[in-house]
């Protein structure tokens, strides 16, 4: 019995100590001089580009640490609405950013569009279903992966198909046949490309930026002509509650400057002159 009491006492002390330690780490970290950690919620389609940008920014600015959190834009938006507090929010479409602006989560003055993107079709390098054109996507038996209707890349995909359905060259039957080939609706772009690389799917509608330099030999791209395509605009901005707005602005200046733009271009995005 005594042993158990001692053990319980030790456990209780450890528990309290660990809770205290957990509570203290935040303040301890910020108390150290020249040590800033910026948390950036980033749309999954920017994973490669922002990882590179953050790495080079940290190298150029010792004392600044960039914490990147990647997920589908709407999952990140839900997290912000439920109390997560990043410093910067990078959205894959205007809809989710506007919602956050309207709800008062953003410092609205800081929200700008910084890159554009478009939809493309990718197929595995060995092209098991022999897809050489958009028309081939309607062939029976093609295994197609798209995004859910609530994810930006999924809703853009549906817009592209609607434009094609409205054109006599393809027509509504084309859209229906393509949608009938869908085997999975993914919630983030990041989980689509692996399924293609593994050859488990025949084709996918993704962003043209999703074909990254490293995947060039595993996946090939089929362009969606601009008359059917969409212009996906990416806004970013600083959160109203951010405690480090100066550091956040400095990072945004870097992203939208020549260094950041070079990386974004390399990953297939089209940087735009910052606009509101």
């Amino acid at each position: 019995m005594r042993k158990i009491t001692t053990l319980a006492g030790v456990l209780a002390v450890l528990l309290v100590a660990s809770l205290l330690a957990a509570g203290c780490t935040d303040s301890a970290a910020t108390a150290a001089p020249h040590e800033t950690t910026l948390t950036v919620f980033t749309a999954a389609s920017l994973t490669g580009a922002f990882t590179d940008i953050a790495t080079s920014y940290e190298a150029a600015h010792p004392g600044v640490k960039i914490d990147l959190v990647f997920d589908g834009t709407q999952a990140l938006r839900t997290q912000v609405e439920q109390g997560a507090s990043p410093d910067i929010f990078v959205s894959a479409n205007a809809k989710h950013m506007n919602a956050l602006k309207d709800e008062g989560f953003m410092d609205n003055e800081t929200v700008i569009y910084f890159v554009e993107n478009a939809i493309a079709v990718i197929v595995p390098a060995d092209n098991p279903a022999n897809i050489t054109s958009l028309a081939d996507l309607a062939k029976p038996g093609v295994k197609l992966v798209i995004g859910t209707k609530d994810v930006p890349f999924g809703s853009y995909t549906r817009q592209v198909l609607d434009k094609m359905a409205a054109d006599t060259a393809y027509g509504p039957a084309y859209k229906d046949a393509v949608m009938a080939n869908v085997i999975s609706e993914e919630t983030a772009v990041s989980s689509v490309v692996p399924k293609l690389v593994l050859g488990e799917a025949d084709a996918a509608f993704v962003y043209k930026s999703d074909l990254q330099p490293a995947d060039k030999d595993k996946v090939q791209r089929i362009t969606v002509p601009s008359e059917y395509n969409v212009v996906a605009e990416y806004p970013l901005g600083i959160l109203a509650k951010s405690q480090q707005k100066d550091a956040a602005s400095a990072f945004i200046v870097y992203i939208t400057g020549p260094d950041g733009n070079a990386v974004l271009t390399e990953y297939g995005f089209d940087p735009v002159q910052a606009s509101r």
Partner: protein
Amino acid sequence: MDLTQFRHHAETTRNDDGTRSGERGLIILLAPLVILFLLFLTIPVASLFLRITPEAFLESLGNPVVIDALFLSLITATASLGIVILMGTPLAYLNARTNYWGKEVVDTLIDLPIVMPPAVAGIALLMAFGRRGVVGEYFSAFGIQIAFTTLAVVLAQVFVASPFYIRQARASFQAVDRTYEEAGRTLGAGRLRVFFRVTVPIAWAGLVSGAILTFARALGEFGATIMFAGNFQGRTQTMPLAIYTTMQGDLNDALCLSIILVVISFAVILMVKYITRRLV
């Protein structure tokens, strides 16, 4: 996993002589910790119910996404349970009754899915049964597709949920007194008949509680399913996948599905406790 152990333990401590001062001091010391932890468990679950109005809940309940997910989950979890009982019972009986070289390895293999991260299970299944998988490519050659079908959902559930039934079944078979079986044998019953008329009825409580746990784990399966079966409404979108998907759009649908899942899980665990108490 063996719930009866917990009950024994609870009873022995309860029947302890509670008048010793050390005991009382211990209770006073532990009470705040216990209450704190119970609150920590209760508040999140209760919050699910508090963040949605009954009207919104009923409205979501009529949403096709919710209905499809509910039915698909119940059908696949039931099918998975059937496969686990069919395949797992002989294995559990074999390991309970015989000793063979490499039994420890087999036992470890059976338990492995419990500690495997769900994504690992998903990738492993894709590498095995995918279109280009080790086994899957032979199926593909005959035009049989496994990945991204309802069958893939069932396979993922069987993979992650089978240990719960097999462990429990093995323990229950081991607890059956061999003299009853031998009595049956001497009275002229065959092995199979003894198994179904003597062994199974005695081990019944353990078998049922193991089965219920496997069913519950199959219902909650997410990571392996989304990797191996994908996310398609009505075909592979089970409740956990539907919760993740609707969270991106309509939070009410996600809450509605979460509540249904919590209620089912709670009922399941309660049932296990009731059955083990009544029959053991």
